[in-house]
């Protein structure tokens, strides 16, 4: 899906747990996530810590969208 969005000329970043799949399929901007059932969270952490973790991942994704890349890049 990420690739098709990029084909349309819109930069897209893939936040995903299984990075090798994302690489195989061909996403260009990849941000590794936490775990399959909670890619952007961690129920073992406190509410505030979890929110901070999620924010950090989203900020990393925004940085990826602002970065010029020539090939597949894992941020």
């Amino acid at each position, binding site marked *: 899906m990420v690739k*098709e969005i990029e084909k349309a000329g819109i930069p897209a*970043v893939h936040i995903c747990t299984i990075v090798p799949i994302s690489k195989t399929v061909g996403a260009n901007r990849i941000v590794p996530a936490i775990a399959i059932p909670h*890619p952007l969270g961690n129920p073992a952490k406190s509410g505030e810590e979890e929110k901070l973790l999620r924010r950090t991942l*989203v*900020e990393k994704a925004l940085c990826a969208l602002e970065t010029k890349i020539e090939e597949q890049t894992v941020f």
Partner: protein
Amino acid sequence: MLLQKLQGQTFRTEYPLPVFDRVAPPPPVKNMSAATLALITSGGIVPRGNPDRIESSSATRYGKYDIGNLRQLTAQSHETAHGGYDPTYANEDPNRVLPLDAVRNLEREGRIGRLHPYYYATVGNGTSVARAVQFAREIAVDLKSSGVQAVIVTST
């Protein structure tokens, strides 16, 4: 093929692996603080009750859902339709899959210009590549016509 292999003859695979095409990365977003960002997920996050009946595996459709007035997702408002992972954590807090709360905070702080008032969701669980391509092509047309300049796709 097995016989050929056992006899040390040349063989050709009976199950070729798919070959995926590559897309040249588009230029980055120049000014994120003025850009419209959209969210897409293959993690199956849907409004409670799954109004479009998106299948829990081998999905044949995706949904487009209004989040224009939402600051975050809650266990009361949303759930996951994905049948390929333990839904406990996503149902407890759907922001763990579609990070609306964090994106809204960053929007308020001016880190992004604005969040597109709809998100798109499907279930990436044994879903064919052909379907995923079709969904994303349709979504891309919608995003283009809405002036979206950047996209975050989240996957479980």
